[in-house]
């Protein structure tokens, strides 16, 4: 793994504009940044990222299987009791997942570490699947990249194939998001084009325009019944909205399925560590409530005492606290050797239960810290997108960086 300075494609900003990728610059700062790119070897991609991410997803499915049967875990994950059935039933029925993005810390040496799994509402899909792909093809055609270089990015084809697999021929799928948020909308449109390519009907409706019919079904902005709903909106919010009472009775099929409420919850990290302690791609993780005193010399909760002792030194060296519900780095605090070294200003999620996770320090490439986004489609890892930031906490203005495989 290295970061290589490369010439930008002439006129790429015009091309981005023409394609509708209008947020390539945000807040006066570049968001898409191709002044340099990350290069990986095929071995690094296949052995250190692809295979571990696919395995981690399988472990996550085992963790879901555990949590849906265990009321204590559902309570810890702060899932409203009245929806436990919805979630357990969606898992028992085997409702298939569509996509997710694992955020990994990796520097080219040693195992990649799972920072968190955005298994419910991951964005930056267009940048990863499409614009990054175009960058690669054009740079290769221009001779900037070698003829035998490649990119880990079969995301689009994997999504088309997944839609074909999980929906009936010609199934009508509604896509709901906030149309005023360009990033969210771009991710939804990317999924919708793939759905159309898979032979499905894809229709957009603003999330806020979804209605409830007299018969208790959901309907779109034109009052047409929603049979299948892809929503770029977190399950933890769906379960707390006014329409939450109608989720089950509506008969709507949701994508991602309700059981993703367990995976997109950072409480999954302590559960994974409990089930698979010492796994090379996992960091030690606990609920803060169980170990808060122990972190300052006191005793941990009895149930995690042994696991905590094993991890005590690692956590003392450095750890991260974050709310179980959080997006884009909100509420994250990094502590090293007993003092805060970084935190995000946004504490809008910090009233939620917190977890503690061992610190995996992000590598430094020219003053920037990359986080790898390993895309999961269905149950397999099929592509990569990188974000980097000067801060060690990646947030919504962090730059997107293209990558390639060489060697």
């Amino acid at each position: 793994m290295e970061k290589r300075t490369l010439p930008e494609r002439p006129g790429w900003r015009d091309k981005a504009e023409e394609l509708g990728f209008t947020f390539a610059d945000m807040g006066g700062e570049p968001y898409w940044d191709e002044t340099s790119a990350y290069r990986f070897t095929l071995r690094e991609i296949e052995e250190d990222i692809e295979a571990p991410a696919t395995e981690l997803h399988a472990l996550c499915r085992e963790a879901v299987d555990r949590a849906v049967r265990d009321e204590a875990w559902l309570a810890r994950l702060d899932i409203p009791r009245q929806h436990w059935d919805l979630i357990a039933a969606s898992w028992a029925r085997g409702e298939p997942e569509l996509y997710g993005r694992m955020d990994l810390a990796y520097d080219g040496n040693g195992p990649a570490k799972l920072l968190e799994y955005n298994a419910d509402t991951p964005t930056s899909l267009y940048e990863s699947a499409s614009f990054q792909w175009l960058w690669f093809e054009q740079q290769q055609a221009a001779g900037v990249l070698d003829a035998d270089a490649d990119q880990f990015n079969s995301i689009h084809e994997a999504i088309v194939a997944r839609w074909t697999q999980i929906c009936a021929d010609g199934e009508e799928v509604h896509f709901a998001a906030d149309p005023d948020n360009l990033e969210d909308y771009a991710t939804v449109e990317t999924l919708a084009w793939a759905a159309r390519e898979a032979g499905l009907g894809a229709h957009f409706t603003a999330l806020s325009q979804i209605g409830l019919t007299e018969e208790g079904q959901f309907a779109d902005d034109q009052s047409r019944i929603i049979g299948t709903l892809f929503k770029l909106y977190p399950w933890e919010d769906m379960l707390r909205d006014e329409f939450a009472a109608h989720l089950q009775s509506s008969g709507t099929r949701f994508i991602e399925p309700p059981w993703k409420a367990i995976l997109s919850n950072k409480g999954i990290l302590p559960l994974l560590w409990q089930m698979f302690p010492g796994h090379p791609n996992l960091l030690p993780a606990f609920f803060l409530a169980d170990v808060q005193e122990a972190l300052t010399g006191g005793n941990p909760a009895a149930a995690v005492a042994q696991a905590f002792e094993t991890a005590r030194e690692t956590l003392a060296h450095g750890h991260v606290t974050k709310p179980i519900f959080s997006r884009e780095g909100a509420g994250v605090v990094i502590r090293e050797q007993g003092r805060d070294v970084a935190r995000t200003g946004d504490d809008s999620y910090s009233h939620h239960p917190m977890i503690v996770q061992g610190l995996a320090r992000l590598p430094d490439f020219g003053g920037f810290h990359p986080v790898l986004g390993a895309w999961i489609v269905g149950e397999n890892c099929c592509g990569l997108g990188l974000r980097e930031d000067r801060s060690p906490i990646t947030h919504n203005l962090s730059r997107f960086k293209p990558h390639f495989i060489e060697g």
Partner: protein
Amino acid sequence: MTERLPRKRSRHVALVLAGTATLALAACEDDRMDAQSFPDLESCIAASKQETLWFTEEDCRQNFAAAQKEFQETAPRYESKELCEQEHGVGNCGGDPAQTQEAQNSGGGFSFMPLLVGYMMGSMLSRGGGISSQPMVRTADGRYSTPKGDQSFASNRGAGKVPAATFQRAPSTIGKPPMSAAQVSQRGGFGASATARSGGRSSFGG
């Protein structure tokens, strides 16, 4: 020099973000794609020899085979020849080849379907997609349509622009129609509560 197999990236992607309008229920002008119709495979292959076109002989063969298969799966089926001809015109219907053997075996239930009178190929290449196809059947008023029946054309040979929805596959099974209109009693029940309670929130994703 050895070529790396299999490659790790897609052969094509969808490149254009066209905006909410193209994903709304009614297809708009921007959503139109290049299409060409052929009465049979031979006429497609003949056309593919002209180098300026967007399809090859192999595309003709693949898409003709796909259209034939899709015709079997999605063409409308009728319980009588009269009913079929009412929808598709006199002389434009035949027996259902997929059911002939079964019908003979069971001694009952013979169905009729319109004849396959050509196919249409459409190109998503300009937005980074591939080539799609649909079988064509006759309509009662002497035109040509896909099995779904919502788009009809004057001829089964010729090129032009058609809405991308033309290439949506017709449903092969019919349950409760998810797109039927309904009375809506209440709106706005999603998106109001959010687990981030203070401050503005830029995105539902992350």
